[in-house]
């Protein structure tokens, strides 16, 4: 890749709450590997995973249209987001606006109502993970990882929307597979940690259904935790803020319901990177924000 890559950054709503540690660690590590980020001006919500129901397709499309139009103004062809749902909606909307003329006209009409310029769908939307795979490359991460996470056993849990359905990138081709993506384990290894075999790599935690009706999805999360435990993982690493929060905050409920005794920290790959890069465990890796603290990782962190 070219030494530096400029991206317009879309943090997404969770970055200001449940996903703060994702946002903070991404902001910390990306520049370290040559990715310069500038936030989308006055960005708004993407519609998340339930928006379409209440609002319907077009308003959801318009929400994303506004973000993209703003990004376009900032004159940089790459848009990057670390959030799976944001990626799904922004990428999907971008495609629709690009390929569906009728919808594009409607969106632009809506944008016009807000006094905004039309957007033609000519930006490229990337997931932060895709940027790491396709633009940064594992070598560069490994190179920068001066504080190798020796002995840390990591279960790489990709989840769903980070690769489905848009493993397919705007530059054509898939940045990894739908069923058995490897990038997460690659990052783990690049950080000097051990990627334990994790069969449920792309299993679902229940997503927003888990938020609304946990009782229906606890068994899914139990399975994910069991697998990690079987594999002897110290931490589970996931790129998805909703996955991270769900799996972290429902462990008590699971233990209560199934009489289990899970206490497995769930971290973001960017947190692993921050520690491996020898950066500040609080300011950069935001480890203090995990409600189940990743002690072993914290011990590895440079004080």
């Amino acid at each position, binding site marked *: 890749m070219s030494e530096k890559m400029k991206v317009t950054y879309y943090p997404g709503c969770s970055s200001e709450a449940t996903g703060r540690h994702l946002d903070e660690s991404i902001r910390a590590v990306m520049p370290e590997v040559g990715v310069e980020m500038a936030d989308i001006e006055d960005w708004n919500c993407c519609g998340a995973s339930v928006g379409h129901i209440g609002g319907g397709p077009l308003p959801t499309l318009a929400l994303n249209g506004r973000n993209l139009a703003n990004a376009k103004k900032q004159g940089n062809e790459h848009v990057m987001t670390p959030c799976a749902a944001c990626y799904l909606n922004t990428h999907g909307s971008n495609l629709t606006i690009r390929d569906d003329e009728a919808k594009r006209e409607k969106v632009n009409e809506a944008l016009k109502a807000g006094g905004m310029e039309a957007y033609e769908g000519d930006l490229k939307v990337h997931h932060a993970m895709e940027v790491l795979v396709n633009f940064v490359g594992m070598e560069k991460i490994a190179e920068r990882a001066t504080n190798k996470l020796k002995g840390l056993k990591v279960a790489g849990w990709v989840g769903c929307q980070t690769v489905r359905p848009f493993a397919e990138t705007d530059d054509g081709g898939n940045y990894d*597979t739908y069923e*058995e993506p490897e990038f997460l384990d690659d990052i783990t290894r690049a950080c000097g940690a051990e990627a334990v075999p994790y069969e449920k790599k792309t299993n679902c935690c229940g997503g927003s259904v888990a938020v609304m009706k946990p009782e229906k999805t606890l068994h899914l999360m139990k399975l994910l935790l069991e697998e990690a435990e079987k594999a002897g993982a110290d931490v589970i690493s996931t790129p998805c803020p909703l996955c991270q929060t769900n799996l972290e905050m429902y462990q008590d409920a699971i233990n209560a319901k199934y009489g289990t005794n899970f206490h497995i920290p769930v971290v973001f790959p960017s947190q692993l990177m921050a520690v491996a890069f020898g950066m500040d465990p609080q300011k950069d890796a935001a480890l203090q924000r995990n409600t189940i603290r990743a002690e072993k990782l914290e011990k590895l962190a440079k004080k």
Partner: protein
Amino acid sequence: MAQDGPQSQTIAVIGGGIAGVTAALEAAETGYDVILIEKEPALGGRVTRLNRYFPKFCHPTCGLEINYQRLRKNPRVKVLTMHEVTAVEGEKGAYVITARRLPRFVNEKCTACGECGKVCETEIDDPYNYGLGKVKAARLPHEHAFPMRYVIDAAVKGTDDEGRIAEACQYGAVDFSEEEEEVTLNAGAVIWATGWRPYDATRLETYHYADSPDIINNVEMERLANHDGPTGGKVVRPSDGEPAKKVALIQCAGSRDVNHLPYCSMICCLASLKHAAYVLEQYEDAEVHMYYIDIRAHDKMQTFYERIKVDPRIKFIKSKPAEIHPGADGRPVVKGERTIDRELYEESYDLVVLATGMEPSAKDISASGDVVKDEDGFVLAIESGDGGQVSCGVAAGPFDVALSTQSGTAAALKAIQAVGAR
């Protein structure tokens, strides 16, 4: 290479499987010169690796034996083995076929006495058995090989075997100086009989073919059931050699799937019914589940389907499994939705056979002139049909054996017309 007769009147047949052998013989027996070009060390292609044919359960080698006798008695057919065609150029009456001649390290002096095999210590994955078993690097391709000549794998080069083998041969048939070389052949007409290969099951990620020895594909099942296969014909679990009594047959593993092979491979359903019979026949307490979308019994095969169906030990489940993976006990688990009663299932088996579809081998060969390839790699004569290139067998489309030999016969006439019928 040397050819008798005017090359403009010679018919080149690419592929020595059942379709190619048929096309070559039918043309030769009608009085025309033929070069039959095969990339493997012996003829017979996929068919020689089959255990039985549907619907008769007869042995494919039986028909091949007749065809080989016809070949032995017919000087008009020149058989070239280990010639891998890479390109066909030119026009009617003057085609140039480029091929890689692969080293066999054994010349025509070979008598098949077997001394080289006796001294050879190097073992390789047996290509004849799709790598299910091991075989000496110096070997007769299989008991029914035509030509009946040994072949030595390059694996022995540089090992002590090289010397031992050269010494063992009393007929000056071993020649390690052989190297791959590019050869060109000329012909007045070309018959594409390049056949097929099973769709790469590792690309069906959700079926975890690579993650369990007990998840196999349909061509491997033929070897398992074959008397000269890796298990001597016993259908067992490759993992531990235990009897495979509970078997799942998975249809459309790759076929009828826009993410893989968009077309229906036509033979899989019937081959799987045949596989069911293999299992039912070997174990009284067998249990066979056939997962399908549609049982596609073409032309008169309906009666064959009904013939298998009467056995109470086989169940037909209308469902394309969503996932297949090694279960907790190591046995493969098949997971999905039974569409008739909308029940979700998760069932373990001794053996899971993926009915992988047929992918045309012609994909790898560059074609030009009066022949076209469709998006899937099947070869078709140009619309007008008066060109000099024709196709038959699975090179032309997903066919069964009867259609392959039938189309091979038809292809012979088209080629004869092209070289100028006498």
